[in-house]
């Protein structure tokens, strides 16, 4: 079905190549990225499974994007849906009417075979067909674990499995066709603390146990509220998930090629050309889309740029922005993979507990409110940390709420900032000094 759709779409587009349209446009090339999705989702709200807000749900959708290259540097960008072929004349007319001039318009990818990355778990298909009730079983297991092992009674959770057949093609003959099976599980207890599992495979038993134990332990600590014992300049530790969210908000954002080229980033193109030192010399930021069965992995971008492992920052120095073909052309650089996953590589201590030992007292931040509202271009943050633990002499004393403020760029530049590995996360916990207020 998907392949037939792709074949027919390619055929109708090919038929138009080189023909001068009544609009005066002449199609010089095309590319499309098609996803045929089927997914099943089961959820729990207020510890009740499958109520009207979390009804077990099935979804099917065939969609994607198409990009057309016309003569005279004209381009069209449109969404694909299942109805495009039936209503091709209407879409064809629309795409011509919405053609725009772009002197930096990208070239198409020449045919090649992008790296084969294992991304499909056959166990997902019977679940979507309803032959395997694993999501129901796992949600029940999570609920039971949180109640029996940790005495937690209020849980919200969801389990989503997706089967995605992806076809990327262009008019030069580039053709990639593969299947991937993203799986996402999220569990939150007492409206306080949640953790997610996201891979392109079903979870292993030990990963479910980790979800129960991590959510259970942290939530129980966060139920013992104390008054914030100190304010002012204090060490704070961002938990691994919070570090990752900070990296996405402040670092990845500013590494986007379109923002760099348009002077909307904290970094200028000259900074990359001269490989300016912006962070500490032992810090690297890596994009890696090649890890088998990982959530952020893929074979190629919609433009046909191969997946890969690249360093956006090395030795604390800027290496390259994240570049689409258009911005690579405009900036005279090489297109990059998109950051499905990004990894901060920096010397780390062995565990979060090892970080506790480095400071007499600190605030461990497990959740912040308002991160998406921050001005990413400045690196400055001012946030409510609504779920924090106060640690003194290596011992967790209880939950506190605080307002934290500082400069994340300065934290990544400082040699005083410390990092700790996490066996379950891509990115580390991060300790630095910030302003803390009640």
């Amino acid at each position, binding site marked *: 079905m998907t392949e037939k759709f792709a074949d027919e779409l390619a055929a109708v587009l090919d038929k138009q190549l080189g023909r001068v349209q009544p609009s005066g446009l002449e199609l010089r090339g095309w590319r499309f990225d098609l996803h045929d999705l089927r997914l099943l989702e089961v959820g729990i709200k207020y510890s009740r499974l499958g109520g009207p807000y979390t009804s077990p749900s099935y979804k099917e959708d065939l969609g994607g994007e198409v990009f057309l290259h016309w003569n005279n540097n004209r381009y069209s960008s449109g969404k694909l849906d299942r109805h495009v072929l039936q209503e091709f004349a209407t879409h064809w007319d629309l795409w011509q009417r919405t053609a725009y001039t772009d002197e930096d318009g990208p070239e198409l990818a020449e045919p090649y075979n992008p790296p084969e990355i294992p991304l499909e778990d056959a166990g997902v298909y019977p679940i979507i067909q309803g032959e395997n009730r694993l999501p129901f079983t796992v949600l029940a297991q999570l609920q039971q674990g949180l109640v029996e092992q940790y005495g937690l009674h209020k849980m919200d959770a969801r389990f989503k499995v997706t089967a995605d057949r992806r076809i990327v093609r262009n008019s030069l003959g580039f053709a990639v066709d593969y299947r991937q099976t993203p799986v996402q599980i999220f569990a939150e207890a007492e409206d306080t603390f949640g953790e997610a599992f996201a891979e392109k495979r079903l979870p292993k038993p030990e990963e479910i146990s980790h979800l129960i134990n991590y959510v259970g332990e942290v939530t129980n600590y966060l139920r013992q509220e104390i008054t914030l014992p100190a304010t002012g300049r204090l060490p704070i530790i961002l938990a691994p998930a919070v570090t990752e969210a900070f990296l996405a908000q402040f670092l990845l954002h500013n590494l986007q090629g379109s923002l760099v080229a348009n002077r909307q980033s904290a970094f200028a193109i000259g900074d990359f050309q001269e490989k300016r030192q912006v962070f500490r010399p032992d810090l690297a930021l890596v994009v890696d889309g090649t890890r088998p069965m990982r959530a952020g992995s893929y074979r190629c971008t919609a433009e046909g740029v191969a997946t890969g492992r690249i360093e956006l920052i090395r030795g604390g120095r800027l290496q390259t922005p994240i570049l689409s073909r258009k911005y690579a052309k405009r900036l005279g650089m090489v297109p990059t993979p998109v950051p499905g996953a990004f990894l901060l590589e920096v010397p780390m201590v062995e565990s979060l507990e090892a970080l506790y030992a480095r400071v007499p007292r600190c605030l461990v931040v497990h959740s912040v409110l308002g991160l998406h509202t921050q*001005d990413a271009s400045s690196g400055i943050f001012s946030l409510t940390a609504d779920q924090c633990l106060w640690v003194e002499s290596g011992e967790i004393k209880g939950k506190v709420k605080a307002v934290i403020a500082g400069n994340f760029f300065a934290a990544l530049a400082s040699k005083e900032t410390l990092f700790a590995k996490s066996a379950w996360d891509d990115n580390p916990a991060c300790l630095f000094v910030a302003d803390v207020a009640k």
Partner: protein
Amino acid sequence: MERPVRGLTERLRVDVHNDVVERARRVAAELNCGYILRLQDKKETLVNINNGRTEEIATGSLVGMGVQVFTAEGFSGFASSDLVSAQAVEDLLKRAFTLARYAKEAGGEMSRALFGLAPHQERRILPLRYPYGSLGLDRVEQELGAINKELQSLDQRLSVRTIHRLVDEEWRIARHDGTDVVFNTPRAFVYNTFTAKEGQETATTFANIPGSDLAVLLDPEFRQRLMKRSRKAAQLAVALLSAGRIKSGHYKLVIDYPLAKGLAHEAFGHAAETDGMETSILGRNGRMRVGEQVASSIVSIIDGPVEGDYAYQPISANGIPRETVTIVENGVLKAGLADLFSAEAAGVPVTGAGRVESCHHLPLARMTNIRIQVANPYPVEKPFEDLTPADLYELLRKYNLMEPGEEVLYLSGFQGGQVNPAFGNFVFNCSGIYRLGEKPVLYRGAIFSGQILSALQAVIAGLGPIQIDAMGTCGKLFQGVPSSGGSHYFLVLKADEEITIGGEAQ
């Protein structure tokens, strides 16, 4: 071009699916189940101009349907597809029915709320002056290019991104009880993002004009307002380059109406949504605390659909007309934003608050346009866009809302917010902060955080008429739906220990 082109009798694209609606009714009768069928047909265009160059013109469409099935006992399942046909709806109904049976086997939650409703038929089609497709893309691109160019020329340190989005969206909701409603939710905006850069300093601000059609681009009044807002935002971005950081603490505050929308939305609206009442700070044992004093006695909070508004939705995703609700009247909690499935448990009437991002989602109780009204507001003569921080200082002094030498901060420019209704914590962020005085001093924006029940008690005055076109996108439970609202031009809040401006340590 000023002609209503749409009316109640006009046929919409979703009208053609009578066979789908009929088949759903027949199959559901055979299965002995209830259902809510949601048909959606959406077209949209996005134009993105960046520093004078067209970055992208993108078009998109979404045609699809979702059906939520309830067994006679009340177990539910949901299935959706981008295929819209009589056979497809039969397949979806059967699949959703099977999922409902799985829910029963797994000991799932039951709800029979759907079975108590009266059937409803209605068409609510918003007349538009400049609907989707009424203007060539060349002209749209040209108008946006002119806006972008003019704003870019204000200061060489500025870069300007101008985005225009125009959405033509139609819905048809049908139920097993014979309900069949049709409505449209058209929306549009022009949104400017300003980034000022000098050396290693960078600052970003925003300005926008929302509406329901191309008037946001073509109507001279809209254009004038957009440009005034944009010039202010652009000047603010440049000024922020040399601004310092405020000391954290508890201050007497003045917030502008976009921030007041943030306050109403984050600090109160979400907590008033009945699907969260079991843990909301506005609930007790799952029941809404109706009749209790929750705000200053001068404060009222209203939510409801407004024609021409960016977040307009006249009928809920469950096919129930959306009511305008006075949630708080003179400080007293009066009603909730109640959808079909949670109103009864929360002890309040259904108000048609259910909304969805798309036909592939399940409805949640949501806001549309939420606004704060303050009793006996102080008059302000100038339009909001013409007022400066110095003007505001003069107004506060004139109305004795500020003593000479008193420390009062004015927070300007909404940058988004977030709330945890279970704990009553909310935050929102502003673009810049002025310490008011004869010569106001500018600081970088900082988080405004507080406790829901303290924030509205702190409101002591409103200045100016009501303005409710502050737009946003609400992301509750990962579903993005348009939101909007506002208040008087300015609200004054007394200093409160539970309301903190984050910043440098004191």
